[in-house]
């Protein structure tokens, strides 16, 4: 017979209910039995009546149930308004403030030591600053003590000596000077001693028609970003290593790009004719391992475009975006390296 549906037929239901009650009675009797065992055991072990003593004590410690008083019969804030005499300063202090007062009065505890330390520190600063300020009238204008200021200034300057920010900003500046495209990493690993005075006019012209040629103020290096007359992607490998002139000769690969900056127009047009004759090889790893001086020399040797010199000088200042990339011949490069070395 199913028992899921509660409203059963009469006899079944009563039987069921009877069963339920029987089960319940069993459980209750079980509980009682457990209790009896517990009590009996306690009685036989002698620990049943332990919470009862003689009548007198029972009366004495009876639970108090009056208002305004706790169960022990004690008043709650009896000691709040009392005053105690401090053994140190002999003053009368309120009871609730007594402990903190003692802490400060006797000089023990966390807060009092902290205050004392602070006072000592400020006193030191004060005495120090006073002695300095007598000598340095300028520093009298400072609101805070000279010692602290010196410390702070020193710390600040120490902080930023070798931070990556510094070098990063330098590099970034160099990059900007070289190209406004700014996406390629132009590296300037050649000798920092380049100056345009050492190069002849031909060399300078050829140099500047092929590369940017701007000398950074910070690193004193010349930007070797090649010019792009043919529109070839500028993202070529423009790594300029200058280990040796001989090795570099073999590695020089310049490309012609069509885009020519306005300032360079005269020189680059002249040199374009010469550069076009040499087909560039793209995507070679050590493609441009050259000083800009060396590269310019090579280009100049090949093209002999003297007109580029004057306009190239302008290019130094104006930051042209794209430049031609002329091919460089080997022999002319060595001559320029000699100059540099």
């Amino acid at each position, binding site marked *: 017979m199913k028992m899921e549906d509660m409203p059963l037929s009469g006899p079944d239901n009563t039987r*069921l209910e009877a069963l339920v009650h029987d089960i319940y009675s069993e*459980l*209750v009797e079980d*509980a009682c039995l457990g209790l009896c065992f517990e009590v*009996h055991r306690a009685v036989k072990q002698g620990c049943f009546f332990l919470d009862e003593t003689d009548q007198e004590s029972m009366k004495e410690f009876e639970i108090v149930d009056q208002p305004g008083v706790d169960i022990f019969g004690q008043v709650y804030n009896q000691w709040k308004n009392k005053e105690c005499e401090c053994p140190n300063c002999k003053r009368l202090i309120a009871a609730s403030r007594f402990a903190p007062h003692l802490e400060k009065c006797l000089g023990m505890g966390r807060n009092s030591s902290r205050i004392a330390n602070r006072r000592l520190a400020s006193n030191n600063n004060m005495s120090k600053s006073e002695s300095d300020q007598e000598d340095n009238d300028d520093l009298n204008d400072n609101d805070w003590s000279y010692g602290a200021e010196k410390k702070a200034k020193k710390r600040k300057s120490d902080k930023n000596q070798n931070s990556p920010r510094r070098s990063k900003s330098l590099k970034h500046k160099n990059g900007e000077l070289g190209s406004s495209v700014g996406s390629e990493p132009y590296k300037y690993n050649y000798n920092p001693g380049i100056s345009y005075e050492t190069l002849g006019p031909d060399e300078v012209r050829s140099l500047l028609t092929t590369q940017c040629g701007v000398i950074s103020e910070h690193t004193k290096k010349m930007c070797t970003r090649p010019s792009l007359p043919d529109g070839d992607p500028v993202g070529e490998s423009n790594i300029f290593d200058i280990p040796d002139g001989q090795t570099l000769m073999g590695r020089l690969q310049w490309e012609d790009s069509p885009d020519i900056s306005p300032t360079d127009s005269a020189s680059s047009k002249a040199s374009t004719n010469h550069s076009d004759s040499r087909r560039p090889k793209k995507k070679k790893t050590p493609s441009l391992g050259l000083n800009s001086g060396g590269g310019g020399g090579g280009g100049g040797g090949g093209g002999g475009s003297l007109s580029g010199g004057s306009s190239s000088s302008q290019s130094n200042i104006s930051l042209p975006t794209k430049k031609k990339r002329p091919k460089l011949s080997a022999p002319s490069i060595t001559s320029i390296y000699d100059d540099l070395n």
Partner: protein
Amino acid sequence: MSKESRMRATVNQKLTEMGERERLKELLRAKLTECGWKDQMKAHCKEVIKDKGLEHVTVEDLLVEITPKGRALVPDSVKKELLHRIRAFLAQHAT
């Protein structure tokens, strides 16, 4: 009535096998302690013991005295809850 007795036996067996009996026992004990039934019963025991004498009191004595009073003193809420649980168990598991 053997059918009924058989049914009862089955129910009891199921109750024990599934651990429901133990659970119900614990539940009842906890509830009775909570509501103060146990302390009341203990006080009653004390009186019984004092009557019978500390040395010679037996478990049966206590049981006889305690059980009727115990059954009567169970609070209604506890009783209702237990009955409810038993019914639910039967509804769920009895066939």
